[in-house]
């Protein structure tokens, strides 16, 4: 594993959820750098390094909420997975929705995994820790554009 922190782009409009996720991610041994985008447009600006994000790094992992202002999470997902230079970035959908349609559609759009956010704090922390344990310590990321 590289020495530099694992870069996570968290796309989440709910400030409370964003803070909780950051807190939960801080508690692990693996160093992470979390960037937050609060809507779909901002997420894509970050990924395409547009405007104020000109210097932003390529994330190793994207945690994506589905229901977002300005541009929906489904559209963001479709954009990432349809773009050759972004496609290989793993996208974990993290949504309160448990609708089979949302789950199925997300996998069709090539979400790397779909996780439904528990409403209670304990469950929420458990899920975030489950993601980090798996995605940050077990899974291998594309290294190509890390420089």
């Amino acid at each position, binding site marked *: 594993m590289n020495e530099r922190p694992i870069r996570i782009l968290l796309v989440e409009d709910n400030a409370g959820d964003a803070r909780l996720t950051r807190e939960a991610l801080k508690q692990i041994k693996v160093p992470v750098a979390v960037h937050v985008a609060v809507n779909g447009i901002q997420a894509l600006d970050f990924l395409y390094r547009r405007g104020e994000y000109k210097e932003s790094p390529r994330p190793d992992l994207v945690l994506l909420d589905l229901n977002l202002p300005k541009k929906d999470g489904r559209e963001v997902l479709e954009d990432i*997975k349809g773009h*050759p230079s972004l*496609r*290989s*970035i*793993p996208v974990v959908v993290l949504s309160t929705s*448990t609708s*089979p*349609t949302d*789950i*199925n559609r997300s*996998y*069709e759009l*090539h979400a*790397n*995994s*779909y*996780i*439904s956010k528990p409403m209670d704090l304990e469950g929420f922390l458990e*899920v975030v820790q*489950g*993601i980090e*344990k*798996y*995605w940050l*310590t*077990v*899974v*291998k*990321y*594309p*290294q*190509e554009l890390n420089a």
Partner: protein
Amino acid sequence: MTQSQKTESGLLQVLLVEDNPGDVRLTQEAFKDAKVQLAMHVATDGVDAMQFLRREGKYLDMPRPDLILLDLNLPRKDGRDVLAEIKSDSSLMTIPVVILTTSASDVDIESSYMLHANCYISKPVDMEGFLKVVRSIDTFWLSVVKLPPRGAL
């Protein structure tokens, strides 16, 4: 679909595509401790795997897997070809595919994600490491993740 769901009685169906018998046995052993009840099916080469998924030949009555664990280096049909076929077939593409291989090559990792592998894991060569990795797959995919709903297609 409804009927097969009933007969499967809630068991999670996992398809392991692996040609090395030792690795097959170890993976099966590791999954036995799983918290989730599952049925593991094994295909030992790429052609076999595609027949299983398309329910051809001897696989006519096989269930649709909820999760696929796929080795990359396989006889007859390579794992990369299997992955590409699954992810471009509208009736199979939503099934999560976990690449589980000894290769840690950046080229293999990048190209697997480009072909829409759901994640890439390189198999540790030591037994303890291997068991740990298999258990983490079990914990994550079978209890944290929402898998595609059955019968949605």
